[in-house]
């Protein structure tokens, strides 16, 4: 770790003002930050701990939907009765993430802003455009079995690692942000940026911007939702492919659908193509297969990760079959 000073923020505006200064980062659960500090991928001169900030840990639900404080811990959100009953896809995505210890530590805001698990990003001896703009992408011609088939560019193909973000983006979640220029609400779908030519710019957030909450609008048919994750081992592993789905069913017909994919995209991947294919379709396997094909139609395989195109389609079809049964 490079040297840093540590400050505990106990006032939201003061913490935001501090974090807007160069070389300063927020520290919440620390589960990703400590790894990045130890790997010297991040070298802040100052950390502002925000876990003592008030009013940012509550979980509530009501007619306006679900509100998750950005400092709520993953384990607490996963076990919250309203999340389990009304948005099972969110609870399941959380329980499929990390380990019980990490879920007791990691926060909702931090989860959304976790950095990619691309091994080249986390190895400072290797070129990486995301970590060091212009240095090149080691993965495009290197070890890329775990990399994205959707949303990549010639500069970066790293996957976004969060399961929670995939479930939330399927539910039309909005992040509430406080920053030097005031409060704003950003659709989660618009929070993360595609790598394009500037993979180092991962989100639309500016220095000092602090996610204070995540809001999920009411979605009655989210009770019929599911998160399906496929990985190299049964537990405590990142996704090779994952699907978050919710279906609004009327008899044998699909009225509406929500579909997002994990493990295959450079950002949490909402598939409007799959949703369009499902809307008004018959509740049958053929409809799910069409939707899966639509979801992966734009996929671009590299030399090791082509299997993900088939795997993601099968994962999505299985998720739809389960939730549609």
């Amino acid at each position, binding site marked *: 770790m*490079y040297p840093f000073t*540590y400050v505990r923020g106990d006032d939201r505006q003061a913490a935001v003002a501090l974090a807007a200064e160069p070389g300063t980062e927020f*520290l919440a659960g620390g589960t990703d930050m400590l790894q990045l500090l130890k790997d010297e991928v991040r070298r802040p001169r100052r950390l502002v701990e925000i876990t003592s900030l008030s009013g940012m840990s509550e979980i509530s639900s009501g007619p306006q939907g679900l509100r998750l404080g950005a400092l709520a811990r993953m384990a607490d959100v996963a076990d919250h009765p309203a999340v389990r009953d009304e948005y099972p896809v969110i609870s399941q995505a959380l329980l499929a993430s*990390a380990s*019980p*210890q990490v879920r007791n530590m990691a926060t909702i805001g931090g989860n959304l802003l976790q950095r990619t698990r691309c091994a080249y990003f986390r190895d400072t001896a290797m070129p990486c455009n995301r970590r060091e703009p212009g240095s090149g992408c080691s993965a495009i011609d290197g070890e890329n079995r775990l990399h994205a088939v959707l949303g990549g560019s010639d500069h970066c193909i790293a996957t976004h690692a969060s399961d929670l973000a995939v479930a939330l983006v399927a539910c039309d979640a909005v992040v509430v942000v406080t920053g030097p220029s005031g409060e704003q609400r950003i659709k989660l779908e618009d929070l993360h940026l595609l790598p394009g030519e500037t993979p180092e710019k991962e989100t639309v957030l500016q220095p000092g911007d602090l996610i204070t909450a995540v809001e999920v609008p009411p979605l009655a048919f989210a009770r019929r939702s599911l998160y399906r994750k496929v990985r190299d081992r049964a537990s405590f592993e990142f996704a090779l492919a994952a699907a978050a789905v919710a279906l609004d069913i009327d008899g044998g017909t699909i009225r509406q659908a929500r579909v997002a994919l994990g493990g295959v995209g450079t950002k949490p991947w909402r598939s409007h193509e799959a949703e369009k294919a499902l809307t008004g379709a018959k509740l049958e396997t053929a409809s799910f297969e069409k939707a899966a094909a639509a979801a992966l139609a734009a996929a671009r395989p590299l030399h090791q990760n082509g299997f993900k195109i088939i795997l993601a389609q099968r994962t999505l079809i299985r998720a739809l079959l389960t939730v549609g049964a």
Partner: protein
Amino acid sequence: MSDWDVSRRGFLQTTALTSGGFAFAQFVDRHGALAAEPEAAPSESAPARQRVTLQVNRTSHELTLDPRTTLLDALREHIGLTGAKKGCDMGACGACTVHLDGKRVVSCLTLAASAEGRRITTIEGLAEGDELHPMQAAFVEHDGFQCGYCTPGQIMSAVALVGEGRAASDDSIREFMSGNLCRCGAYPNIVAAIKSVAGGRA
């Protein structure tokens, strides 16, 4: 037992100091349990130390620490509680598991400063005097370890798991123990030990 621990550590430290090999010293510093402080990056001056008060096993410890010090290093190197182990130091193996305010966490990914004001429980705080915690006794009874390096973390995790109500089935125990690795492969006996404690409570 603790006397033996201290003398073993003293021996290892002496060995590290006298071996003098740069590569070895580097290895110990970066990966071993012997590093007293986080390594300072070259050409960067170390930041000012800060006072941190930690409540560990119902005892208060006033420390003066480099801000980079993890809770794990504070416990092991500054307080002398070497029960929590340093395995991967990256949150993947669970050997460093302790309880913060009764919840299990990995102490290697927690800054010591972040743990100030919280109730910290380590494996040393589980027993009541000479009487083992039921989970410790169950690990002995069911032979839930071989080399023992992961055991303090396994037991801290297992105690929390029972409290979380996740011991209803073997599958649930396995899933909710997934944050603790055992390279010896004592998993079946660890599951048996946890079941025996959870069954006794039901």
